[in-house]
């Protein structure tokens, strides 16, 4: 494990922040579907999907008052989006109280400037990495200190999922071992 032996300027972009929160009251989904703007009613699954424009988030609303919001690009944006959604519901007439906001999942994307030889990489990282070319073209690598996982593609693109907050990515990328190869093409 050569930590930071190559000082690469890596851009780790957070692409998605998923959070859950509650409005602490029961919601009438039919009423929201009829009166609300930018909503889709999925009656078979019992939920309403509301899409907001300005933090570009999609909120899935259940009648119990629990809401999942996805699509935000930062934690602050996720909170703003959540509050906006609650405000919309308040305007529709429900006694909304914003509560229990929690970031559940953060997805980030990173790109290595070199290509990666997946079979060799997997052999070196045996218990943590799993590669099944028949099922998925990427290697599933579990990052040990966090309970996050990375999908590593042979082009060098990396997708990180399962993070708890957006502060952890930079610290975890560099302890990443480097038995990779630069391809002279």
């Amino acid at each position, binding site marked *: 494990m050569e930590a930071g032996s190559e000082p690469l300027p890596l851009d780790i972009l957070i692409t998605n922040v998923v959070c859950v929160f509650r409005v602490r009251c029961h919601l009438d989904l039919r009423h929201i579907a009829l009166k609300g703007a930018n909503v889709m009613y999925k009656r078979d699954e019992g939920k309403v999907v509301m899409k907001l424009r300005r933090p570009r988030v999609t909120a899935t609303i259940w009648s119990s008052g629990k809401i999942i919001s996805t699509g935000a690009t930062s934690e602050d944006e996720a909170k703003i989006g959540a509050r906006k959604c609650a405000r919309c519901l308040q305007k529709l007439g429900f006694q909304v109280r914003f509560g229990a906001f929690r970031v559940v999942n953060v997805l980030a994307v990173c790109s290595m400037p070199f290509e990666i*030889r997946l079979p060799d990489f997997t052999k070196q990282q045996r*218990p943590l990495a*799993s*590669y*099944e*070319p*028949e*099922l998925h073209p990427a290697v599933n690598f579990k990052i040990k200190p966090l309970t996050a996982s990375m999908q590593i593609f*042979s082009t060098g693109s990396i997708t990180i999922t399962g993070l708890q907050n957006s502060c952890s990515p930079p610290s975890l990328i560099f302890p990443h071992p480097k038995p990779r190869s630069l*391809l002279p093409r």
Partner: protein
Amino acid sequence: MIIRKRVKMAAMAAVSSPRPHPVTKIYCPSHPDAVLVEDYRAGDMICPECGLVVGDRMIDVGSEWRTFSNDHVGKDPSRVGDAQNPLLNGGDLSTVIGKGTGAASFDEFGNSKYQNRRAMTSQDRAMLTAFREINTMADRINLPRNIVDRTNNLFKQVYEQRCLKGRSNDAIASACLYIACRQEGVPRTFKEICAVSRISKKEIGRCFKLILKALETSVDLITTGDFMSRFCSNLGLPKAVQIAATHIARRAVDLDLVPGRSPISVAAAAIYMASQASADKRTQKEIGDIAGVADVTIRQSYRLLYFKAAELFPPDFKFDTPVDKLPQL
């Protein structure tokens, strides 16, 4: 199963020597302290010091009946019960009452009066069904007995762990079969296992990952060479073409011409290249059917190989179609 008649161990009789005898009453007259050795073949007790046969026909471990090879298989009088499968079933020693023979055992409709209800635990029943299913699947692709045994063992381990309890038993069985083939060094593609099972590739893949996690094992990565002999012989290609295709695929992976491509697609493209260069040409569709690869996929991988075609062939390959005349797709 041979019935072993136990020797009744007599209690220690009054023995004159200060050291206690082992529990038998008989002893060699010249060596009273010697521990007698059993010759189980003849059923004798022999003194190890002087070789005197002290007790004759104490234990007979021979078979009570003689069976010959040309006899009925169904009637082995030496057996008292079914052949046990103790590794897999936990040793069910229950016996059943046989079918009635006389007229009194049948009622007026011709049904037998004593209904033989074999009560097996549901666990055993589920396992037996799974083993039967595994046998059927393996039979369809002609897998040898060692792989089937390994699959059965894997299934038993997974079943007893109960981690994958919610999953369909057939899915777990198919995934175990896949893992067993891999572990034995003769991997089958997921599509090949799909072909003999009713479970979808997605579900088998999911169960596969779950089983590896549950049993905490891992399997080796698949390589292109694992499938060459099977695909080539299914296509009817001669040995030279098979060797060429293996060489091409290995060189392609070494030179990393096909990053991120599944080894099966690379193998299929290599077979295509080798067959097109030889006298036995095969179309992409034929190879795609055998390998379970779409022909566009073969085309994609072939394009990547085509650039360096000249370097990929083995040096002693006899070209029927030279390298520059290979089809360019």
